[in-house]
């Protein structure tokens, strides 16, 4: 099972140029809104045409600009879950699913397939309802049932949870995870949420301005994002330009500190990143410690966010420190330190050269 994609397409403000290969499992494409991730999916499904490139699904060429191949969407057998689910509003649940079964001429078999999909997606009793009468979660299940009725060889999921209320999201993520585990083909999911990406995708491709900037195992990418964009998109709150000054030493003028880090430090180091929960109260003079000058305290339901500066220097942006309320009382730490292995060493994929350029 594999999906190979290499496409280039000119968009209004920039050009999309991406390439990746999936192999068994869910590939997540993580990027800010408007970075070209949805367009990538649309090109794979065939509802948009790339300017050039090649798309191959399980050995079947879906698109090849050099060879002049461009299969219409209905021959691609690629299921596409639209952000809005795109259910036909004037058809009932049953009728919606039946639309994907045009290839099945035998009426009895068709009815049987619909019944089994209705059962599998827990839609019993809703068969005669219209999409407008269903909850967001039910609509998503109908859309998935309709997609699977066509027996696609790959699934494309475009921001599958963006149309849902917050309290529904986590439950539906579990449901979708279960579905994806039982699904034989590959899946590509587009999202701008690091939580969704982390929970659902085994591998991750991070995109910015239509280009891929990092790709790899999801857990590994969160541990070591490698680039500024990847760090930002995986939710790293503290980012500051930095320069390499030794084998295991970096200087961060914006925060007025030098950090000991774990080598190797890349020569083209542009930024360092520290996740908000990686600061810990420390004694004066401890390794990588800063004297804290609190700017702001923000209370969340389960944790505190402290916005602070290094009292001994640095003109850059303030830093975020996050800690759980269960550790109450430590919010007034005089010094905070960060372990060398928690400092993310980041290169810049695009021109913002930090302090070196």
């Amino acid at each position, binding site marked *: 099972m594999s999906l190979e994609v290499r496409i280039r397409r000119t968009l209004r403000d920039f050009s999309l140029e991406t390439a990746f290969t999936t192999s068994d499992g869910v590939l997540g494409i993580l990027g800010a809104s408007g970075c070209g991730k949805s367009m990538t999916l*649309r090109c794979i*499904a*065939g*509802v948009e045409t790339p300017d050039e490139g090649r798309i191959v699904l399980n050995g079947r060429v879906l698109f090849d600009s050099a060879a002049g191949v461009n299969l*219409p*969407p*209905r021959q*691609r057998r*690629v*299921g*596409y879950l*639209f952000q*809005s689910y*795109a259910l*036909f*509003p*004037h*058809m009932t649940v049953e009728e919606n699913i039946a*639309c*994907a079964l*045009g*290839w099945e001429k035998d009426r009895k078999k068709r009815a049987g397939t619909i019944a089994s999909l209705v059962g599998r997606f827990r839609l019993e009793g809703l068969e005669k309802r*219209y*999409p*407008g*009468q*269903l*909850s967001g979660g039910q609509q998503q299940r109908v859309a998935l049932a*309709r*997609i699977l*009725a*066509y027996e696609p060889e790959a699934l494309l999921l475009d921001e599958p949870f963006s149309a849902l209320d917050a309290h529904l999201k986590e439950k539906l993520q579990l449901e979708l995870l279960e579905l994806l585990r039982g699904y034989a083909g590959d899946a590509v999911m587009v999202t701008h949420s690091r939580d969704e990406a982390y929970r659902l995708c085994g591998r991750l491709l991070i995109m910015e301005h239509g280009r891929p900037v990092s790709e790899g195992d999801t857990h590994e990418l969160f541990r070591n994002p490698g680039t500024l964009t990847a760090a930002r998109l995986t939710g790293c709150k503290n980012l500051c330009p930095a320069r390499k000054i030794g084998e295991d030493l970096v200087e961060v003028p914006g925060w007025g500190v030098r950090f000991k880090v774990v080598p190797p430090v890349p020569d083209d180091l542009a930024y360092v990143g520290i996740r908000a929960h990686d600061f810990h109260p420390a004694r004066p003079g401890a390794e990588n410690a800063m004297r804290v000058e609190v700017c702001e305290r923000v209370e969340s339901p389960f944790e505190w966010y402290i916005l602070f500066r290094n009292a001994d220097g640095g003109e850059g942006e303030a830093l975020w420190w996050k800690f759980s309320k269960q550790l109450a009382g430590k919010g007034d730490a005089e010094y905070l330190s960060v372990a060398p292995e928690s400092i993310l060493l980041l290169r810049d994929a695009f021109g913002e050269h930090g302090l070196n350029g």
Partner: protein
Amino acid sequence: MDLSPILISMKTAALSIFITFFLGVFAARLVAGMRREHLKMVLDGILTLPLVLPPTVAGFFLLYIFGVKRPIGRFFIEYFSVKIAFSWGATVLAAVAVSFPLMYRSARGAFEQVDQDLVCAARTIGMSERAIFWRVVMPLAAPGVASGGVLAFARGLGEFGATAMIAGNIAGKTRTLPLAIYSAVAAGDMAGAYDYVAIIVMISLLAVISMNWFASRESRYRRKGAKR
């Protein structure tokens, strides 16, 4: 009162709306699906032209194309022994030409309002373009298409200028209601004109009311839908 103008008008309006409806829907589908913006704009302009031209000019062009001395007009006479100009068929021709843009524009607007994601989704689940049009686009665009049809019908019924140019004003043959009103007034027969005017006003009012009904009609799936 001479009833023949009423009959001729009803026959003309009925046949012309039938032709206009299919031509308009076909043209709307063609233009709505076009990707090349410039070509689309030019074609749209040409198809809308009869709506903005004075009807006499539209009639002039029809005469220019189908007149007995013009190539196409001669062709019909020689090969089919059909004289188009100044026949009953010419009243239909005039009504179609003038009412077509209304049908076309309403249908195009209705098609373009249909969520494109629905069309894309339909393609990815294997539906053919024909099935997508008849089962997805058309039902969703139906209120707009229907109100366009009513508008085109009313316009065809009231057609005067182009009809006078290409069909003339032959009593019992091409004299439709608007022409009969004109003739009655020209002959000083105001009482005769009143009857025809009353009939036209009634039918037109009925048409506008039914159009509003189509437009406001809540579809079954929306009425039952509790949410959204």
